[in-house]
């Protein structure tokens, strides 16, 4: 899988050399924030992403108060009223072949099977919103977990070096050598077939839990965050101010978290939106293969998979969640590019040159 991270393995933001008087005395963060605020396209992408998040988290509100449906319960004998006629949700002999049952298509009437029903008579619009909630929770959760763990490991490896570094880095090399989808498929099948779920110490994961795909996806992307950050930690740890800290007798913890971490954190922030975009795509693919989110939960990937059998008769069941994925991932990629340009001193070259 191509991961859109290769271009960003660059040193963290440092004060540009041509400090104009108007920007002197401001922190690099304030400058980056200002650069980001001036980037209209990135801001628009952020707004779009936040709108999708808000809509997805308002799913229960939509289902209960607008559509008055329960999108997790089969509704095979349900009916709805369209143009004053009461019609069944599943119609006999619909579609091209006039065979079997076909759910009603989109009514384009908000609150009344806007996108139609699926083969179990469940409201597709409500399912897409609920599915977005799962997809976003897993995507954001796994990206954050992945970035935090990878950063901590990279700090430990890059600061202590020696044996710790060798062991951690070789371990990451092995995970990295493993193609992401195959690794995810192996772990997911092994865990999903385990009857009692997975227990590691106090942590207990059952197959239907959203935590399972979250943990799997966070694990498989660890090396993609670990590698660039460890390289950066290695070079920051060589800097004079760290040497000065050592000379003053600062503890390891203090050196790692007060001296080195602030200098690599901008790189993590650049990676985060791009990682979320990647993890959302991965989650949808795993769910499409039926090894991600498990019923009764739904995610965008599972809805696309459910809609496969209805593709030629009721295409909106599959198309709608796909459009949501594309919009979300596109917004994150555009915003991520904006964050990179804002935090990366070389971005100036890219914008003006």
């Amino acid at each position, binding site marked *: 899988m191509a991961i859109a991270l290769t*271009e960003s393995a660059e040193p963290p933001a440092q004060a540009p050399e041509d400090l104009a008087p108007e920007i002197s005395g401001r922190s690099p963060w304030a400058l980056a924030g200002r650069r980001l605020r001036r980037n209209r396209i990135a801001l628009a992408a952020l707004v779009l992403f936040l709108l999708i998040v808000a809509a997805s988290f308002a799913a229960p509100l939509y289902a209960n108060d607008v559509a008055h449906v329960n999108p997790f319960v089969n509704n095979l004998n349900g009916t709805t009223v369209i143009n004053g006629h009461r019609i069944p949700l599943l119609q006999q002999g619909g579609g091209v072949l006039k065979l079997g049952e076909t759910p009603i298509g989109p009514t384009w009437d908000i609150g009344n099977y806007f996108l139609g029903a699926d083969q179990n008579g469940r409201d597709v619009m409500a399912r897409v919103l609920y599915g977005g909630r799962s997809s976003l929770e897993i995507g954001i959760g796994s990206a954050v977990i992945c970035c935090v763990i990878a950063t901590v490991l990279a700090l430990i490896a890059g600061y202590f070096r020696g044996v710790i570094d060798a062991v951690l880095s070789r371990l990451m090399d*092995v995970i990295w050598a*493993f193609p992401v989808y*195959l690794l995810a498929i192996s772990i997911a099948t092994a865990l999903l077939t385990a009857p009692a779920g997975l227990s590691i110490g106090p942590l207990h994961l059952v197959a239907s839990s959203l935590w399972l795909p979250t943990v799997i996806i966070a694990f498989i992307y660890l090396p993609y965050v670990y590698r660039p950050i460890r390289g950066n930690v290695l070079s920051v740890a060589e800097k004079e101010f760290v040497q000065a800290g050592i000379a003053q007798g600062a503890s390891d913890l203090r050196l790692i978290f007060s001296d080195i971490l602030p200098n690599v954190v901008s790189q993590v922030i650049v990676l985060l939106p791009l990682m979320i975009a990647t993890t959302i795509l991965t989650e949808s693919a795993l769910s*499409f293969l039926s090894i991600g989110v498990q019923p009764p939960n739904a995610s965008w990937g599972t809805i696309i998979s459910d809609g496969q059998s209805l593709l030629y008769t009721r295409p909106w069941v599959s198309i709608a969640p796909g459009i949501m994925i594309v919009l979300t991932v596109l917004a994150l990629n*555009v915003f991520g590019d904006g964050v990179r340009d804002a935090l990366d001193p070389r971005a100036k070259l*890219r914008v003006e040159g």
Partner: protein
Amino acid sequence: MLTFIVRRSLWTVLVMFAITVLVFVIFFKIPGIDPARQIAGRNPSPQILTAIRHEFGLDRPFPVQYALMMKKMFISRDLMSYSTSTKVIPEIAAAAPATLSLVFGAALIWVVVAIAMGVAAAVLRGTILDPLLMIIALIGISMPVFWLGEVVNLVTQSRLHHSFLFSWVPPLGYTSFTQSPVGWFKGLFFPWITLSILYIGFYARVLRANLLEIQNEDYVRTARAKGLTERRVLLRHVLRTSMITFVSLFGLDFGVLVGGGALLTEVVFAIHGVGFLTYQSLTNLDLPVIMATVVYGAFFIVLANTLVDIAYAGLDPRVRPA
């Protein structure tokens, strides 16, 4: 150079060993799972479970279990699928040509189109076409490939199938090249396009960024100062250097796709390749097949990475460690 090849090959062997250990641990040693039950497929009888326990040596020590599994996979190659009662390894070998056909064709398309798009965007910098091309590339990166495949199917197989544009598109599935070259091409045309779109977007973006970065190098200025035409500077000096990054990325992605990354495309277009086999065994929970495809796929990828690294070191002496 020879020491580099030797060291890199030793590392490859080590990584392959680590991968088999990791797969073994995932399928046999995760706490709370019973490997015999996993291998047996759905609803096994107690007799089968006992037979499996004996065959895989599950009552014996850890290293013996590992050795037995490796023997089944690589030496005797008689790993059985308990769901379909067939030998797994020959089945994978039979599925390989379909995957290779799909990936080769897609790779050809994505290399040609991505170079054209990346170069066009870099040359047209400052016009409206550059951001337009890059937005198209970004949309390509943001689409889930299985969804794109379904949309393509919807258009070519159903909605517009009766129009003159798509009436030539055969039903989903794979026709082998030896059986009918024309059918092979027709059946793979849209899968190729679908699979290549993500990579076109990704490579075009990387290439454009790389081209713009190299524009500022001293040797490019020298080339301009010599009085070379813009065209010659671009093709002979800038693009050639960019190709180093491009080729190494290409090797990695190509390896990943042949090793199982084309799975989603194969599933959507019902191309019975290695990825489709993995998918079928996922739905049947047929663990031996999944294990074998994962290990063989990963091996192929590691091997491809090694070849890329060696080729890269051959091209660029700076990479070779002293």
